[in-house]
């Protein structure tokens, strides 16, 4: 298999087969919290995808050239979280300077991304899976797209749910979780489709 094919498979595998939210349980908080409207869900998804792609590349560099080179694996958690926090800060400042329109739509989501466990999970999975530099970037991008897919689908369902007749006790969080369960069942259909 050529390297390109492998990267394409890695991308689709990350989006569908090992979806970060519905299969790996990473990033459940924004999935439940920011999925009331399709528009905001889309904004959150895009901001997260952006940060995830950069995180994929940055953690590979830090891990390979600093942590592994100097034999400091015990600093992994501390250094990854610092990388993510500063990356988010940097992205926020960059977008604010270059594109005020984009900042207006993504701005409020950026601070929330630091504590999104999908990002730290992504950073920790990269050394575990032993991806290359390009592989890590593709993995980050695929994870972000998978996150966006799940959160936008959920927001679409919840918008419809507003008009549904939900029993009183299930209103709010419980019914959202049950819908997520049914979505996870649907995503189980993808399992085994791509094995890397």
């Amino acid at each position, binding site marked *: 298999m050529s390297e390109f094919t492998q990267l394409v498979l890695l991308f689709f595998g990350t989006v569908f087969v090992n979806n970060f939210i*519905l*299969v*790996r*349980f*990473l*990033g*459940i*908080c*924004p999935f*439940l*919290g*920011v999925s009331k409207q399709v528009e905001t869900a889309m904004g959150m998804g895009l901001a997260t995808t952006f940060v995830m792609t950069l995180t994929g590349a940055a953690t590979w560099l830090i891990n390979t050239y600093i942590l592994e080179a100097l034999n400091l694996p*015990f600093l*992994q*958690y*501390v250094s990854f*979280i*610092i990388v993510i*926090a500063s990356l988010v800060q940097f992205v926020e400042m960059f977008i604010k300077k270059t594109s005020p329109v984009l900042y207006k739509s993504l701005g409020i989501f950026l601070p*929330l991304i*630091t*504590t*999104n*466990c999908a990002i*730290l*999970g992504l950073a*920790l*999975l990269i050394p*575990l899976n032993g991806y290359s530099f390009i592989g890590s970037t593709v993995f980050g991008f695929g994870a972000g797209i998978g996150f966006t897919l799940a959160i936008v689908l959920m927001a679409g369902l919840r918008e419809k749910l507003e008009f549904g007749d939900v029993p*009183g*006790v*299930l*209103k*709010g*969080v*419980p*019914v*959202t*979780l*049950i819908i*997520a*369960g*049914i979505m*996870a*069942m649907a995503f*189980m259909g993808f399992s085994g489709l791509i094995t890397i």
Partner: protein
Amino acid sequence: MSVNAKQLISDFKNGLWQENPIFRLVIGMCPTLAVTNTMVNGLAMGLATSFVLISSEIVVSLIKKLIPGDVRIPSYILIIATFVTFVDYFLKAFYPSIAASLSLFVPLIVVNCLILGRQETFASQNPVHRSFADALGMGIGFTWALLLLSAVRELFGMGSMFGLQILGDWYRPMVIMVLPAGAFITLGILIAIMNVIGKNATNDTTCH
């Protein structure tokens, strides 16, 4: 009983039910859903999180005056990450099989919003003894909720509890319960039940 002791007891009891992290506040969902496929994992996760929560609340409330307001969140995260590294190495050394099955979710305690949230709302504003009571209550509240969820999932999904076979051969395990889909559905139903018991169904995710 003095006012002080009463205060401590109410701080402690707060996390058990009134503000139970999982059933009432609905925070810290990633480990809640991911590691509750067996009771052993659920208990280990609950204890690990409680340890980190208690230690970091003590440290934060001790040094709260030294932390400048602007960099408090990064400082909290660093304190938390240090204790998480400690727990992770402890589990890997003494309980390698549990460490392997929790895998990624031990390091992810760093970004558990329950822990960061308690530093911000409680430990940074209250003295050490009250922070300790709060952390202990929250930790136990988190642990019992994880245990309940994992008990339901393990019993229906494998017919066992803590790895001991409870239901006989007649029982056909519902595999879905130990898979991701079962986690979401079980938690949804449990929260609905807790809402009925607690009457005031006002839970909404407070942190994202």
